Structures are given as structure tokens and as C-alpha cells.
């Protein structure tokens, strides 16, 4: 079997104030898989994501990305890890901090040592992937929310990550933007972990779903099967929208 893109073993984590968020998470994501990470508010989803690229140091257990151990203390390897794990944050305004869209997309690859024509080519390609090429020189605050979310995805794609992690990608999007983003995400040939409680979106995009609840993975299986299991969903404060059935 190939090395999984993401391998998390017995991961536990407590915040400095004593509030424990993760109690032994086990998760393995194979290359090319699209996995939805479902869970109610406060389940520890964001905390888990912060472990995937070493923002939170691993206190107990281990995280491997494409076979490489995530160790927040090893500065050189963490640089490498962060180019492999692309996180798209929930609020695009947190992600887009440079004066123009183009400069923002160049930020990641620049940190990885890309310069000149090579850098330009990467930026253009990333913009093309999310259909935002004509917005290269615009300041981010001139864009609509949906456009900003797409640019946020492009900033991460420009780093050519091994795995794309999206935190609530469909939140605050109007139906058309939601669908456009889904089309873009589906067109990408990349391993994906999608943190969400938008169950139809998970159904649409991810063949596999896991439920994180109370700091542990409580379910892991094919998305339709998980979403059909009413009792499982109910026990974890997840609900399909009214009128939606699989």
C-alpha cells in the first residue's frame, strides 16, 4: 500500500487553560481521497486542522504528512510540511492580507523560494484554476465574498500542496458561489480534507466522511451510509436540511 497523504495516530491535545479538545484521534487519508470531516461546533475540528501543519505542537500521538512526521520543533521540516498541507481558512479576510490578489497568491510560493518568471507562472496557473485570472491586480476588499473564498483557495493551490484542507468552505456563500466552488474543488486532482457541517456539501464532494465528536472519531465510512444513519447524526448534533434525503 502507498504511503497515506495524512496519517494521524492517537492524537490528544489540551489547551493551556486545561480545556482538552482531542482525546486520541486516529485518521488515515489515502492519496487522492476526498474526506469530509464532520462534527458539531466545539467538536475539536479546527484544533485537529491546526495539528496537520504543526501550528499546534503535537502533545501526544503523531501526525504524518506523506510519510513525514509533523514536528513543530524542527523548523526545517515544518517549512516543508507547511508547503505540503494547504489550509484554506474560514474567513478569507484572514487569509488575504497582501495588497493585491496576485501578490497574495505569490506569498506562499515566495516563501518556498520561488522567484521571477517561475513565480509569475505559478500565480497565473493558480488564478486560472479558480477562474479568477482577471482579478490579479485587484485589492481583495473589492471582491465579493465568494470571489475572495476562491482566491483563498488559489493562494493555497499555488503552493502545490500534497493535501488541501478546507475549513467550512461553503459557509456564507450564496447558492451560485457555493456551486461554483464545488465545481472548482471537484476539478482539482488533489487529496482533500473538508471540515464542514454542511452535510449536502459533504455528500456532493466527498466519497468518505468521518465524524469528530467530543475529541474522538466516532464514525468513519462512505458518505451516503453515514448520512443515512439518522441515529448516528442525531447523537452528534448533525442534521440534514429539511426535505433532503439520500
Amino acid at each position, binding site marked *: 500500500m502507498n504511503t497515506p497523504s495524512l496519517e494521524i495516530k492517537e492524537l490528544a491535545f489540551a489547551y493551556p487553560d486545561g480545556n482538552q479538545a482531542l482525546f486520541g484521534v486516529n485518521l488515515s487519508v489515502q492519496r487522492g481521497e476526498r474526506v469530509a470531516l464532520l462534527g458539531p461546533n466545539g467538536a475539536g475540528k479546527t484544533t485537529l486542522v*491546526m495539528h496537520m*501543519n504543526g*501550528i499546534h505542537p503535537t502533545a501526544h500521538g503523531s501526525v504524518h504528512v506523506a510519510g513525514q512526521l509533523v514536528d513543530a520543533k524542527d523548523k526545517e521540516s515544518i*517549512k516543508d510540511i*507547511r*508547503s505540503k*498541507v*494547504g*489550509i484554506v*481558512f474560514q*474567513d478569507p*479576510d*484572514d*487569509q488575504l*492580507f*497582501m*495588497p493585491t490578489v496576485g*501578490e497574495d497568491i*505569490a*506569498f*506562499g510560493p*515566495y*516563501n*518556498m523560494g520561488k522567484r*521571477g518568471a517561475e513565480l509569475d507562472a505559478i500565480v497565473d496557473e493558480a488564478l486560472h484554476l479558480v477562474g479568477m485570472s482577471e482579478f490579479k491586480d485587484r*485589492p*481583495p*476588499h*473589492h471582491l465579493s465574498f465568494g470571489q475572495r473564498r476562491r482566491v483563498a483557495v488559489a*493562494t*493555497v493551490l499555488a*503552493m502545490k500542496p500534497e493535501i488541501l484542507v478546507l475549513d467550512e468552505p461553503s459557509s456564507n456563500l450564496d447558492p451560485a458561489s457555493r456551486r461554483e466552488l464545488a465545481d472548482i474543488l471537484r476539478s482539482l486532482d488533489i487529496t482533500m480534507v473538508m471540515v464542514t457541517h454542511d452535510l449536502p456539501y459533504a455528500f456532493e464532494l466527498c466519497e468518505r466522511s468521518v465524524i469528530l465528536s467530543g475529541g474522538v472519531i466516532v464514525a468513519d465510512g462512505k458518505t451516503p451510509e453515514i448520512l443515512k444513519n439518522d441515529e448516528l447524526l442525531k447523537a452528534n448534533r448533525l442534521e440534514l436540511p429539511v426535505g433532503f434525503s439520500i
Partner: protein
Amino acid sequence: MRVSQERLKIRIQENKHHHGHDVGERLYLHRHTFIHALPSHLKIVAALCFILIVVSTPVTQWGAFVAYFLWLFTVVKAAQIPFLTLFKRALIEIPFIFFAVLMPFFGTGEKVQVGPFELYREGLIAGSGIVVKGTLGVMTAIILSTSTTAREILRGLERMRLPVLMVQIASFMLRYVNVVNDEMERMKVARESRGFNATGMKSWKVLATAAGALFIRSYERGERVHLSMLSRGYQGVLPQEQKLKISGSIWLTAMIYPLVAVIIFIAQLLIGRM
């Protein structure tokens, strides 16, 4: 049913209210002049040199100041900045020159009669010096800020080798001033939607609480932005653009602004000698 939008279209004459957009770029007036096109760091250097010359001209050389103003207005004209805009924006200096205006009324020594007032000669000279030099400085800054976007000014400062940290802080401010302003606007709307009306001392407590909340939110956003920067491999340096090659003729074009001031200064000295 299709309603014709044309029928009920409200004509907006001038969009004076910005709804929180582009707080950082309000000063910039888009025109296509050679002054707009000059590299920003040259403009900053030229403006600083001009101000330096103006400040070092003795205020008694009033002829030089008349010439400085004429030259400044020529440049304003060349940059296609409406004079009304220039004068309106220059009003910003009023709080600063307030005391200068009072100077002739208080003091000691020789007095002169100006209209109905008896003024002190020394105070009059010092006060008018501050007003005239201040106005020239402010108007020069207005030419710079009207013909250069805030972003370009920051780039210029970066090229002038200002400490990177300062330029970065200013760039982030420019990026997020709109976001924070929008947030403030939303909080204001939410307050007013619940019947709050900011009048008098009683409302101060509410406003102070709102300011505190805004500060906490901005602080937390700062932390999130930093996290997202770290996630994309940030190690303390922001990307810098490639070095620009600037020809001598462009340098010269920019430096005409202070050079003419130098010529005026010298000419005035020579005339004064004769």
C-alpha cells in the same frame, strides 16, 4: 414578472459616502499625468527636498514665498488636481496653525498697526512664517497623496530602505483598515437597529464598550492572519519586488520640483544683495 430596472433607476450624482470601502485610498485622484506616473519614491524625495528648502528660507524673503506658491500651483495644475480639492484638503492644517495665528496678539517688543489691531512685530513675523511654510508643506503633501495611491507610497518608502517592519505594519494597516471599518459600520448599524442613539455623555459608555469589542476582535483577527501566514511558510519576510532601474531623465523630472525652489531661493538671495 419582469420589472424594468430602468424605470425606477435612481441617479446617483456623486458617490460621496463610501460605505466603508477604500478608506485607505480616499485621497487618491485618478488622472493620467506624468506626475502620477513618476515612481513613488522619487516623488517622496522631491516633496521632502522641496519642504526642506521652503523651511530654510527666511520668512522675511517674502518674494521667494510668492514664487514658491506660484510654482506649487503650476505643479498642481500639471497634476490636474482641482484647486477646490487642494484648498479643501489644505483645511486640515487649521488646528495646527491655530496658535500661530494667535502669536501676533501676545508678546513683547515693537508693535505695528495692522487695520484695527495693534500687533507685535516679532509675533507677526514668526506666526506668518509658520502659516506660510506650513501651508506650502501641507499642499506639497496633498500633491503627493492625490497623485499617488497609498499602496504606491508604501512601496516608495520600501524602496527608500525604510525599516521593513515599519512598512509592513503600515501595509497591514492599509489592508485591514477597510475590514475593521466595515466591522465598525456593522456594529453601528446593529446598535442603531436596537434603538441606540449616540447623543450626549450617556452614550459614551456604550461607545467605549463598542471600541473595546472592536479592539479585541481586531486583535484576534491579527492572530488568525498570523496563523494563516505561518501556514503558508511565513518566516519574517514579505515578498519584495524586483529592483527598478530608473533612468537619469526620470530622476531629473521628479527633481524639477525642488530644483525650481532652489533657483527661486538663490534668485531671491541675489536680488536681496543688490
